[in-house]
């Protein structure tokens, strides 16, 4: 059991592309989608996992940290490459132990209905002791997809 890769959870993407009611009217550009942290005890399955309750057993909790809204979200396109980006995460005065990945999900309201969107593998586990927990997204954003390969 381990986090071994970053990725997009396909079942949610499929629901969005097909207009399934489960995700209506949720949006990747909503300003209340949630970032949560999980430990390396989790085994993400991008093909089959669909809701937060598939991973919530391995949530990393700690003082000063709660699920954090991802803001400044945007989908853009340039030269055929779609980019999904957002404001960096920065939360002060946290004490967290061994966060191995962040999980982005829709904020629908319950673990069994919050659709998983994507996961980012930190590769090295992160801990804080009454300090700032931050995620500095890559210069290419959270996700890029070449739509004109």
């Amino acid at each position, binding site marked *: 059991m381990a986090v071994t890769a970053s990725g997009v959870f396909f079942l949610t993407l499929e629901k969005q592309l097909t207009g399934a009611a489960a995700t209506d009217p949720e949006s990747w*550009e909503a*300003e209340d989608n949630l970032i949560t942290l999980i430990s390396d005890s989790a085994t993400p399955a991008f093909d089959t996992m669909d809701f937060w309750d598939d991973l919530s057993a391995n949530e990393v909790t700690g003082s000063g940290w709660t699920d954090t809204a991802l*803001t*400044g979200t*945007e*989908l*853009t396109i*340039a030269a055929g490459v779609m*980019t999904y*980006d957002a*404001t960096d995460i920065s939360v002060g005065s946290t004490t967290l132990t061994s966060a191995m990945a962040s999980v982005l999900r829709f904020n629908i309201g319950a673990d069994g209905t919050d659709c998983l969107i994507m996961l980012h593998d930190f590769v090295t586990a992160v801990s804080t002791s009454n300090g700032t927990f931050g995620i*500095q*997204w*890559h*210069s*290419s*954003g959270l996700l890029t997809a070449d739509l004109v390969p």
Partner: protein
Amino acid sequence: MSKADDLRAELALAELEELLVLAKANDVDNLRELKDKVRAARRAFREAREG
């Protein structure tokens, strides 16, 4: 870039990100231009940070 340049770039990016959030909250119809500006500012700021 100098430290002052870094701080100016960070502030400019934060202002653009705030504008984007405000525009979305007010249902501004066409965000394309603003989103492209934010994307470009983010890329430049992060590339400088990543060295």
